[in-house]
């Protein structure tokens, strides 16, 4: 079937099987490999992308469900050559080690900060509790998100209104 969706501001049309998962559409058809597949059962969150502005686990969504809608992936976090504060925070606070969960964590973090600009540590932990990191023990992910909260708004183009 033919599916058209907008990903990071660019419209794509592909002819794919109706059963194709959104994560495979993004990774295999569009070659945007920053979103990862990790578990198949919606437990790990390595595949989190935004669908019409809301984080979803793209391993359990069909590509067809995203037809006509807007997807944002980690490749769309950066704006005008400038890293999103969330990306900067993950570097500054060592929020990643192997990097496999990082894209999903950052997509959730960006969404959290867009809706709760000054979250408590407990709110950050709750927000990422549907995602698994095997390397960091979460401590530095929490610090990274807090760093981003403290640095958000100091630069243009990080809010939801800037979504492509």
């Amino acid at each position: 079937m033919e599916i058209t969706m907008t990903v990071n501001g660019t419209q794509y049309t592909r002819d794919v099987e109706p059963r194709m998962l959104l994560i495979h559409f993004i990774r295999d058809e569009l070659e945007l490999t920053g979103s990862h597949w990790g578990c198949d059962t919606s437990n790990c969150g390595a595949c989190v992308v935004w669908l019409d502005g809301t984080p979803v686990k793209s391993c359990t969504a069909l590509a067809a469900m995203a037809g006509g809608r807007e997807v944002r992936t980690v490749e769309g976090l950066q704006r005008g050559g400038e890293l999103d504060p969330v990306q900067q925070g993950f570097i500054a606070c060592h929020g990643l080690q192997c990097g496999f969960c990082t894209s999903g964590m950052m997509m959730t973090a960006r969404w959290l900060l867009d809706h709760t600009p000054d979250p408590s540590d407990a709110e950050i932990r709750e927000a990422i509790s549907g995602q698994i990191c095997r390397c960091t023990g979460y401590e530095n992910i929490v610090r990274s998100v807090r760093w981003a909260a403290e640095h958000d708004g100091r630069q243009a183009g990080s809010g939801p209104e800037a979504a492509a």
Partner: protein
Amino acid sequence: MTAVGEETTPMGYGSMRRKEDARFIRGRGTYIDDVRLPGMLYGAVLRSPYAHARILSVDVSAAEAHPKVRAVITGEMLRRRGLAWMPTLSGDRQAVLATDKVRFQGQEVAFVVADDRYAARDALELIDVEYEPLPVVMDARHALDDDAPLIRDDVDGQASNHIFDWETGDAARTEEVFARADVTIAEDLLYPRVHPAPLETCGAVADFDEISGKLTMWSTSQAPHAHRLMYAMASGIPENKIRVLSPDIGGGFGNKVPIYPGYLCAIVGSMLSGRPVKWVEDRSENLMSTSFARDYHMHGEIAASRDGTIQAVRVHVLADHGAFNGAAQPSKFPAGFFGVFTGSYDLAAAYCHVRGVYTNKAPGGVAYSCSFRITEAVYLVERMVDMLALELGQDPAELRLKNLLRPDQFPYTCATGWVYDSGDYARTLRLAMDQAGYAGLRREQAARRERGELMGIGVSFFTEAVGAGPRNHMDILGLGMADGAELRVHPSGTAVLRISVQTQGQGHETTFAQIVAEELGISPDDVEVVHGDTDQTPFGLGTYGSRSTPVSGAATAVAARRVRDKARIVASAMLEVAPDDLEWEKGRWSVRGDPDQGVTMAEIALAAHSSLELPQGVEGHLDASCVYNPPNLTYPCGAYICVVDVDPGTGKVSVRRFVAVDDCGVRINPMIVEGQIHGGLADGVGMALMEALTFDAEGNCLGGSFMDYLLPTAVECPSWELSETVTPSPHHPIGAKGVGESATVGSPPAVVNAVMDALKPFGVRHADMPLTPAQVWCAIQGRPLRTDLVLP
């Protein structure tokens, strides 16, 4: 830890931002499933639904007829080519695709190569396998019963499910000490089968070129050079015709040390189809078929005097190795480094006996950040010490302080012969107690107990033995465990370092550049680290057992010092003075007594490549290499204190605080060290409270997805409270000790000790991990569960 600003890049050791992060935070890493070659096909594995069954027939005709299928491989096809079995890292063999029987649920039976990943999966459904189910051995405790079904009837002369017996220590002397002791305690402890479960599963892209006969193998490998040899052994392709590439690895933790049947099937698939073949396992395949860890049934005993002097420890272990002995460890150590179960104490005697058996479970046995089974050893001794404290009515921290090795005892040869290099154990534990506010916590606990609240405080102290290892007695498949490093300084003064070890998130691209920077006085930003490509890097055994810094880090430092020595000779030619008249200040050789007369590394590097006349016998250019053979292991240690609250109504455990003081010697990049400790602590909480690969009586794996195999998330983990002591390793070139697994080793007993401490009012002495709400609730009722099997 505070955030690391860009301006803080040190000219050597110190916290600095990681070089590798730039690609990862942009989604531009290259993990195995991101590798995409022209014309690439996709493979999928058909797996056994039975834990033990005879294969009567395999019909692949319908699958072969699928329009998108390019090849279907069966065990019988491999057998005809002599490829049906592959060597394991323990000198056993493992079926690539089953020919005669399947021996665990999830075992590989057939392999399909198709145009896309969906078609490959579809075709699996078209393969018709007829099985005759056989009785299973799921309970290791009955593996050697007279009437136990024989699992390994493929091995000539194998009459039972016995694999090995191994012992260490002095049995007679230990018995003497036990016979005289005031107090002895015995307990059965299970360290359940767990899984490393890296977030990225295992996979490969095999690309065989039939014209050159060369195999290019992209794979999730923690040990690319060892994998190259194993592929050569298993496939018959000469080692020089194999290039193993490890791209970015999405976590390993030991899971990516062995080779797996899927890798070899991808190779055969590429040979048959003439195209590159990608195979990436799904999560269930990863949990059900690849290397597990632990599965140790331990009977521990401890002997002490009435005043609390620990005198001896004895342990008998029944080790469940699954259907093939695939444990990855130095060959002379079939129980890994379990022999350091003597822990951190000065014992008069110690003895252990380990018996390994086959069962109808997945093969493996050493993985999950365990430092070759020191995880099990530390759990054993630290639980026994806590039980001793309970028996004697002494505080568990004070009991440890009384018995810890003293600084003046190092180097210390323990009762089983391991030579501990250095430590100041009491200082480390006291720091943890101070940081936790230990006395205050005990007062709070007493007050809460008055109110019927269940608060527990758990202490553990661990000593690890990491950095395998001295090549005269440590090898894997006959390969001594020395690793190489090659350093080349370019004419402009920047450098490239090639190393044998393989990061899976540890940050080698940063820390190894920092080692060179520290030694040469150039910026880490000017040092490129090359790894993960056997055609470009020196030989070595890879990253596991916390060995990268102890072995390859040492090789790097020594190579850099050799470059520095050569730079001195070049500098002497440049300055027209004798080398002995030069002195080193970071980044510069200058004339002794005349510091203005000097040359920088960049100037020296250019001169080394120039027409400058060098002394007789000195070659141009500026490079050096080293193969580092460690004289001993390094012995990091740490003191952990965990505070838990237990809900008496539900049995739910909440980890309120966790204080960790680690001593891993010199820290190259403290930010990265702390990050590794954080991760290991989460692992420990997971194993203590949530994780177990459990089976039913028929051999069905009950932990085959992340819905069933539970891992800790951000809400189960507290905010870790870290501190450090620094006792450099006296024999390591930079005094570093290795830290990647310390927290995984040390934290499970701290958590379990805390929960048992919370349950003290109920008279509970021990309950096995994982301490799920059900397990805790049952323990409160006085009948803790068996956590490895669900029996009818």
